[in-house]
């Protein structure tokens, strides 16, 4: 360090071409530190040679480690500044090619990093203030300073310039953060007036930044926040939430962080719009709730299906062994009731969205008819219901449970639109589209219309009504109509909406009719009958003992040789022990000790010629979810009639042969 000081001093005196006349007095009057021995680059802009000599002469001090460059004209100075970057510029304002403030202004623009000391012959207070205000570090009048004072002024000017530069960079950084922050930032006075704000803060209340400044943020917020902030201004900080309340009726939920008195009487509020975040959280909660309800519904349906299987199985046995018409009639009534109950469990599964799409020819009118009791329950007493279905509309290719979901969602939507009561009208008719309607290609359709007499929707709402998560309701998931839209599109159909203020809305679903299809949809698997006797060996596995026994009794009555087991392990033991072939394994999926998957894997290894039929109270997608690779035709959902079982067995076994 010491050596570098000597080097610097030596270089400076050499450049000046003079001997430094040292004196202990001068050394002691100036505090020496590393910066004072730093070799400083000085640009002297002075057209008076005598004055220039005077200035450099005054600075012949042992502590002055200055390297001078002297120019006499503004043009020369500007050229010099393009090449070099002096630490300080000693500037006379009146030059041959420039005068007054103009000289300072031009130099300042060219030398942003250098300190500027104005050395003027004019004791002009106004000019001095102006130059200092605009960035000069000092303004000295010629003849009023001696060497040590000038040297000190130079050093202080450089320090001030460096501090200003550091401050400017900090300010630029803070300003950039302030301006580009996604969070609103507001600085306001004790009376709530915004003194400074960024664009994000303005956007929260639909104002530009400039309009927000000077306004009171509390004027755009719910009542009470002003009082809260007033209390917070007497403490140090606080956090909370408030709702904005804007003239157009819109509201945003805002999280704030409040810091009192960042400057005397000035408070800082950081604002974050969490409206969408809260909406998403609510949607997630709703979604999780629906998921839980769906799981519950699926579980209930599974258990219920097993019970229904037992009931229907025994009812069929009763029916087949009935000795009188009356006994047969009672058995048929039990079977009919069981079929209705099975329909209800299907709807529960549909509600839980547990069914995969299974396209088949459907009579939409029949689907609607089957749902009419649920529609009644859903709508409630305050709404009148009118259901009209034209007969023989035709068949469409769609998934029954999905069509049920479409009807239920549109019904729920109509009910929500009539909180004070009204009329819900659901109709099904045949519709032929002409070429004049671009939104509906020409063709024949089954038209499902769901109309309400509610308040209707604006054009803007209509344009967004099918977007996922769009909702006008506080508690809506925003998924109901988007699900309808998705199902209709998946089924090759179209959906339109018409609405009129105070008159209500109508949703029209158009499903293409399958040409040439007679109106005799595929019989329900529940009542499918088979009269073909069997002779093969079948292994039946079900942990529902009553259903297992009934199934075995029925299959034996059909001529099959039946082996039975109550779980997977027992079934494996039978498989391994049985000497002859087993043509078919009929197994449940969820069982104690060993699941259907483990059993199927074992059988496929040890008896590759054995066919597999999976029966389950869960929906058919449960088979794949349990990891069993299976042709969909080898699945039968509980509850089923024994006649449907018999038909399925023959279909599998006869296909092989």
């Amino acid at each position, binding site marked *: 360090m010491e050596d570098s000081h000597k080097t610097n001093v030596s270089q400076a005196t050499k450049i000046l071409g003079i001997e430094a006349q040292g004196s202990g007095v001068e050394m002691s009057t100036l505090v020496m530190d590393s910066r004072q021995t730093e070799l400083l680059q000085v640009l002297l802009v002075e057209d008076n040679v005598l004055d220039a000599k005077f200035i450099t002469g005054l600075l012949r001090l042992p502590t002055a480690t200055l390297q001078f460059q002297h120019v006499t004209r503004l043009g020369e100075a500007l050229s010099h500044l393009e090449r070099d970057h002096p630490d300080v510029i000693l500037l*006379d304002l009146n030059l041959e090619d420039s005068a007054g403030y103009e000289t300072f202004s031009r130099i300042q623009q060219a030398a942003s990093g250098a300190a500027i000391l104005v050395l003027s012959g004019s004791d002009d207070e106004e000019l001095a203030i102006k130059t200092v205000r605009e960035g000069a570090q000092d303004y000295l009048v010629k*003849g009023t300073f001696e*060497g040590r004072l000038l040297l000190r002024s130079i050093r202080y000017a450089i320090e001030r310039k460096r501090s200003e530069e550091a401050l400017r960079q900090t300010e630029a950084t803070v300003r950039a953060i302030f301006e580009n922050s996604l969070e609103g930032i507001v600085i306001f006075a004790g009376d709530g007036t915004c003194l400074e704000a960024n664009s994000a803060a303005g956007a929260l209340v639909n104002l530009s930044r400039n309009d927000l400044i000077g306004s009171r943020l509390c004027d755009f917020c719910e009542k009470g926040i002003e009082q809260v902030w007033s209390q917070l201004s007497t403490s140090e900080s606080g956090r909370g939430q408030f709702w904005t309340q804007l003239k157009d009726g819109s509201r945003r939920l805002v999280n704030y962080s409040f810091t009192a008195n960042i400057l005397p009487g000035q408070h800082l509020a950081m604002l974050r719009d969490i409206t969408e975040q809260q909406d998403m959280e609510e949607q997630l909660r709703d979604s999780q709730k629906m998921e839980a309800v769906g799981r519950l519904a699926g579980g209930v349906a599974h258990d219920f299906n097993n019970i229904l299987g037992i009931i229907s199985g025994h009812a069929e046995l009763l029916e087949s062994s009935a000795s009188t018409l009356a006994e047969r009639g009672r058995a048929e009534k039990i079977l009919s009731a069981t079929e209705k109950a099975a329909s209800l469990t299907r709807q529960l599964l549909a509600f839980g969205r547990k069914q995969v799409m299974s396209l088949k020819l459907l009579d939409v009118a029949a689907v609607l008819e089957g749902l009419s009791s649920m529609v009644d329950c859903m709508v409630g007493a305050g709404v009148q219901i009118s259901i009209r279905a034209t007969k023989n509309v035709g068949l469409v290719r769609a998934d029954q449970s999905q069509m049920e979901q479409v009807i239920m969602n549109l019904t729920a939507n109509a009910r929500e639109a009539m909180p004070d009561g009204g009329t819900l009208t659901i109709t099904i008719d045949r519709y032929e589209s002409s070429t004049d309607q671009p939104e509906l290609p020409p063709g024949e359709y089954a038209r499902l219309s769901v109309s309400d007499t509610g308040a209707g929707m604006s054009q803007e709402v209509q344009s967004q009504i099918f977007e996922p998560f769009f909702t006008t309701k506080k508690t809506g998931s925003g998924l109901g109509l988007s699900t309808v839209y998705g199902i209709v599109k998946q089924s090759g159909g179209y959906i339109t909406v018409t609405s009129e203020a105070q008159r209500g809305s109508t949703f029209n679903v158009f499903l293409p009719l399958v040409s040439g299809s007679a109106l005799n949809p595929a019989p329900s698997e529940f009542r499918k009958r088979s009269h073909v006797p069997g002779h093969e060996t079948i292994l039946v596995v079900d942990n529902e003992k009553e259903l297992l026994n009934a199934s075995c009794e029925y299959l034996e009555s059909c001529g099959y040789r039946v082996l039975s087991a109550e779980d997977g392990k027992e079934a494996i033991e039978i498989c391994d022990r049985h000497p002859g072939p087993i043509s078919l394994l009929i197994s449940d999926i969820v069982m104690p000790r060993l699941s259907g998957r483990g059993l199927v894997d074992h059988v496929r290894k040890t008896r590759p010629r054995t066919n597999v039929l999976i029966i389950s109270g869960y929906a058919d997608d449960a088979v794949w979810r349990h990891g069993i690779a299976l042709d969909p035709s080898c699945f039968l959902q509980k509850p089923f009639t024994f006649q449907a079982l018999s038909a399925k067995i023959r279909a599998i076994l006869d296909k092989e042969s």
Partner: protein
Amino acid sequence: MVIIEKQRTSGLNREIIADALLQAAWLNLLKSEHFDSDALWNRVHGDVNLLRELVDLFAAEIPVMLTKIEKAIKQGSPSDLENASHKIKGSMLQFSAHAAAAIARQLEENGRIGSMAGAGNLLLDLQQEISELQQTLEAMARDGRQP
């Protein structure tokens, strides 16, 4: 600073007193009204070499500046008069030559407002002040001390 109080000068040799008074008056004049030699001496930190360099440069540069003022007056150019007078004013301030600086400031003001009235006489006064100043400065430089 020497204070001249004529009322208290009695009972001493008249010639000595008169001589002292003259000397004091001259010094006072130089320091307080025309030229403050103390201020200049302090400003150059008693550096005689520097003072000599400055006096030599003074002798070379000041006549050039005066010529520019004279030329501006003759040509009736206020801006040139303002610029040249401003320049010589700055130098006079550096030398603590208050009287000369004051005259130069008046000439500069004339140029600024575009008036040549009295400029010639002011120039003569300035030349006279500078002539006397130069003699004093040369004495200081030659003797290596204040007058």
